[in-house]
């Protein structure tokens, strides 16, 4: 049996290959603090993955150029190792293992989307690696008792329940009829739970409750029902693609609905891509550039938006802003811990209480940020057809009045 020889040589080749490829970076090399991140550079979340990465990169550059991180009297600079998780939870979990056990990363930044964060969190938790994440909002992330997970954003169920409450208020306190369509993924389903809660609270009725497939590019079936049943509010959530599909088809089918509430309008660049068709869409956002928070690295939201646009040629969606904020949180925690011990950094993170351009950050027991409300903005166009996102709630920051009900297509 000569074939044995072939197989044997084959196995030894693998053995050699594996043994030579064990390269270990330490968490802190020279004057660098190495952070690890699995980001969706390809697949269904690729556009938001890039927003996240841009946010991280901008903050790394900014912090490094403004003196870096001072720990134990020495100055360190941030560096991030990226991998592409392909928008796939299986891949993300694998990459987290890899970042920690092969690349020796001891501090992690979050991926994009709740589903992927759900896949990564058990791994970071197991190794006791602190992870500051900026894009996993599903509330089940914060009820698992994770000790090393910190999210700079508000949980997903708080995204749109304000919209329902506003609708009820504008309806003279009477319950409204809600139509909703959500993508089949962890984040959108959590937004749905928030709506269900709000509906229960206000006694509103849900008359359409559709589930949309991932890789969403058609929701005509839902919209036909909306046309027939004439709900007071239409809620749609399905990441960037969901927002784009909804606006495209609502305009095509001339669907009239008094209130259209969505997520991811700014990530989808709706006001740019769809112009007037996207007018009056009401969007939940973690951040808006016009908010009045500030810090010493990015200044105000307006300044952040300008710097961001200069470098990446588009208006920063909140996904980028929150990602940048994650780095500020890490820097702050390292300096307060004055150590690179994972446990100490973790404790410092838990005690975070700071203001960034993105908002106040203070973590609850479960790791979610409880010090920052959501904002709602509406896409408003001026006479020349130039559309902008204007904050309409909460009133403290409102720069425009909510247009309600949305004018009919025949009257536009």
């Amino acid at each position, binding site marked *: 049996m*000569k074939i*044995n020889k072939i197989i044997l040589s084959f196995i030894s080749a693998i053995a050699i290959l594996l043994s030579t490829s064990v390269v270990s970076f330490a968490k802190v090399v020279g004057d660098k603090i190495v952070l690890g991140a699995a980001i969706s550079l390809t697949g269904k979340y690729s556009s938001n993955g890039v927003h996240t990465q841009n946010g991280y990169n901008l903050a790394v550059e900014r912090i490094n150029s403004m003196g870096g991180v001072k720990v134990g009297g020495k100055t360190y600079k941030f560096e991030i190792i990226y991998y592409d998780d392909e928008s796939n939870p299986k891949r993300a979990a694998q990459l987290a293992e890899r970042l920690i056990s092969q690349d020796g990363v001891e501090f992690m930044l979050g991926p994009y989307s709740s589903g992927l964060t759900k896949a990564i969190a058990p791994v970071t938790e197991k190794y006791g690696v602190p992870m500051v994440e900026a894009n996993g909002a599903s509330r089940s992330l914060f009820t698992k008792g994770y000790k090393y997970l910190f999210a700079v954003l508000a949980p997903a169920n708080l995204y749109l329940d304000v919209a329902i409450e506003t609708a009820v208020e504008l309806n003279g306190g009477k319950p409204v009829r809600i139509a909703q369509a959500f993508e089949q993924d962890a984040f959108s389903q959590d937004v749905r739970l928030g709506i269900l809660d709000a509906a229960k609270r206000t006694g509103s009725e849900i008359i359409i409750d559709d589930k949309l497939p*991932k890789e969403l590019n058609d929701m005509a079936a839902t919209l036909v029902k909306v046309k027939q049943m004439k709900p007071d509010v239409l809620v749609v959530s399905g990441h960037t693609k969901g927002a784009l599909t909804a606006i495209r088809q609502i305009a095509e089918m001339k669907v009239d609905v008094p209130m259209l509430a969505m997520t991811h309008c700014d990530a989808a660049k709706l006001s740019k891509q769809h112009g007037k068709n996207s007018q009056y869409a009401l969007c939940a956002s973690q951040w808006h550039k016009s908010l009045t928070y500030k810090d010493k690295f990015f200044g105000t939201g307006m300044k952040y938006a300008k710097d961001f646009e200069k470098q990446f040629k588009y208006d920063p969606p909140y996904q980028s802003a929150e990602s940048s904020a994650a780095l500020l949180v890490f820097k702050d925690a390292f300096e307060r811990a004055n150590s690179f011990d994972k446990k100490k950094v973790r404790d410092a993170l838990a005690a975070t209480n700071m203001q960034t351009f993105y908002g106040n950050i203070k973590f609850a027991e479960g790791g979610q940020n409880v010090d920052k409300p959501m904002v709602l903005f509406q896409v408003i166009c001026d006479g020349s057809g130039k559309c902008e996102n204007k904050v309409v709630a909460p009133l403290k920051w409102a720069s425009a009045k909510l247009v309600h009900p949305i004018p009919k297509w025949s009257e536009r």
Partner: protein
Amino acid sequence: MNKNFILYALILTFGIAAPFIFPAFKVQLSILCVLIILAITWNIQGGEMGYNSFGNILFYGLGMYLCASVQVGMFFPLAEWTESGGEKTFVHTPSQFFQGMAAGLVVAAIIPTIVAGLIGYAILGLRGHYFAICTLGLGVAAGEISGGIEIIGAGQGFTTPPFPNVGGLEARGEFFYLLSFVALVLTFIVVRGVYSTRFRLILNAIRDNEDKAEAMGIQTMKYKIIGWMISAFFCGLAGGIMGGLVGYIDSTDVAFDGREMGVFMVLMAILGGKGTLWGPVIGATVFHIFKEGFWTFFLGWQYVALGVLIVVIVIYFPEGIMGWLREKYPERFGEVVDEADRKAQVELK
């Protein structure tokens, strides 16, 4: 025989020692074992029987959901576990975890086998492209359906029970590696055993000419179904292990992942050489190494690199690595080569 024994002993030792020699690669090695199982089982249909199945992912995903559901459901109310994406958390004690896993894996292997029998009875009458397309539909449908079933988490996904706090940091990796390695060895032994009987010849007869095989009195349907049930058994087992390893089950991205796993199992078997016992093993290993390499060095372009690899495979190694070796060194595969005849052929050219 003697040499064979040494070879197997060596591989076994290597397999058991691997996680201790390369501790950083435990997860990749576990995934490699799962990939090999998938390639070996796909080869029963695609290689030996000539039925290109894209539906084996159905059994893999089914096994994954079943294993996790049993593991949770044995001790806690499953609906509460998955409700709101697992908002309530119950903690398994170590003995609960391992008992649940064991029972889960048994169910994960047996139910898909039964399902394969039932579905097989219905669709194995289809041949060629019709069978391929039909099975492709099975995987897609299963993904969409499971994404709507609330009790297994629907679109929220299903977080599998976290590994209990026993042993050190490395315990989880070692446990899952050994589990997947044992499953791999089991698969290999069973498939090898099956291939050494008349069964393999019947499968080959079906591949080469199903009508003739039937005319010779072989009940082809029976053997096709049994073949598929064997595949389903081990696919389900592999799925169950993978679910625990990943820790989070998503209907279309992790469980019924026809776009990745479903295609990979076909590619791996073809790369190694379909219709051979060792081909899928070698194919899966080479594929996994290339894939991990691409994913590291061609960040963002990994799928392009993978695409190029597939094109190269199809053009230069249409018969796979084993097929290529066999053509090059036929005598090493125990084929008798008449040197004089070979020379005569060369001279004729």
